[in-house]
């Protein structure tokens, strides 16, 4: 029995930036429901006085000396771009005007 509604699955897919076809949404609704039902076993564990683990091996945040170091050259960083224009990544319009994408 699915424990997620179709609307919830669609909302999560949007948050995750995943386009899912209708059959994928059907499968996801059923499978995620089953997985989440199984995972509710941890909900009954008393963890009221247990701190959440933040790091498996305790360590301080490391700092390095504040001096510039070489980084990836722009040409290298851009080499694998699906679309580029000179030293820029090309993307569809991000800011839309009143009459749609400008």
């Amino acid at each position, binding site marked *: 029995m699915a424990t997620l509604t179709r609307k919830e699955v669609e909302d999560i897919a949007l948050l995750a930036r995943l386009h899912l076809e209708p059959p*994928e949404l059907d499968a996801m609704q059923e499978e995620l429901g089953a997985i989440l039902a199984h995972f509710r076993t941890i909900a009954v564990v008393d963890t009221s006085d247990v701190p959440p683990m933040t790091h498996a091996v305790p360590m301080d945040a*490391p700092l390095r000396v504040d001096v510039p170091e070489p980084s990836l050259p722009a040409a290298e960083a851009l080499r*694998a771009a699906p679309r580029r224009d000179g030293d820029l990544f090309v993307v569809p319009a991000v800011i839309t005007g009143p009459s749609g*994408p400008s």
Partner: protein
Amino acid sequence: MTTAAALGSVADTVRRIADGEVTAAALVEPAIERIASGDGELGAFLAFDPTGARAAAAAVDRQRAAGVPLPPLAGVLVTLKDNLVTAGLPTTAGSKILAGWIPPYDATVVERLRAAGAIILGKVNCDEFGMGSSTERSAFKLTRNPWDPARVPGGSSGGSAAAVAAGMCIGSLGTDTGGSIRQPAAFCGVVGVKPTYGRVSRHGVIAFASSLDQVGPLARTVADAAAILQVIAGHDPRDGTSINAPVPAYAAALAAGVAGLKIGLPREYFEVELEPGVREALDRTIAALRDRGAAMTPVSLPHTELALPAYYLIAPAEASSNLSRYDGIRYGVRADAQDLLDVYRRTRGAGFGPEVKRRIMLGTYALRSGYYDAYYKKAQQVRTLIKRDFDAAFAQVDVLLTPTTPTAAFPFGAKSTPLEMYAADVFTLSCNLAGLPGLSVPCGLTAEGLPVGAQLLGKPLDEATLLRAGAAIEAAVGLGDRRPGGARGPGGASP
């Protein structure tokens, strides 16, 4: 099986080249031939690099000719799981979303292997972004288990385990987020080491779950795995979670034996249903260790059954965040669409496979506003309970012994639901949640002739004790010169 016989140990390879018995070029050619003729059937390689391998071999031979002292892995033939980035060599992590991507830099572990004289033969198959337990979730191909081509090699480092078992390389680097080195090592009859979290740099590892991922070696013997770990372990300032602690000489631990060693047997790992061949192999292993003077002690890890649900909330949550970088903008594949949101959605919808989508969805759900405390935080609290179990056990014993997997390698298609597949990792997940080192070593064959793995779990940074106990298991109940397909290695007769 000529190459399987020709590939000696790490130590033999380096010594033979140093002594002038053989050149690196002469070692690399039959390996290239063997891969060219045999990998079509095995399916281990995603990117085969004979040109790079020949160049690396020539460099080793020039060092030898110049009288320069040879580095520790000179001429050692290796492969790399395809989620380790390699400058100039395609890297996909088994995903279509990275098809054709050529990284601009080497992962730290790759740099270290190259500097140590290792010869990289290519990149090997894995479940997409390391998410799977059979390598069936690779977007590109199936990899077969060399012991039985109708069965999976395990996963997600299945290409690594299969390539080592088939004698195509001496060692391979894999990654282990919930068992992805140890489980395929067990299924393919090789040794696999998952180091302590932070022992090996993650710089240049394509991230799956950052608080759990570790790189480690797969090799035919414990000594070979130790030699490779020696090279890749140690602090890296480019990884903020890298531990700055000295790396001991692992080879020195190997011959120590197990006399006086306190080995814990966690009852929760033996009370569950085990395939008979797995149980028998573990029983023989326990008896052999006791005979050699180890003190075998029952211990309890009471929160073991919570590891699976905790892991499958934490790992997808971290994955959903890590994989947000694949958006079709800076590298990888881009789907055409009118607006930016649609570029993201269409690129990711077309580029990710079903298991990756499932985990991104699960992780996004668990991290959603209002759900964080009930899922992710709760799972992190359970993780503390699991770590405390191990701390209590290690107050009594030096190392823990368990089966690596409940069954030997399963046939293709045998795990039909996600939950069934997740259960294949039931014995390996806790180690990652607690950040501990783990090792799988072959401890015999089932009646069907499939390898069984024994898992050792150790105290943080105590890889040396795992290698020491692993070498003892290998000597007592290991596979010796038994090889896939009934072939025997150096010193044995081929039937």
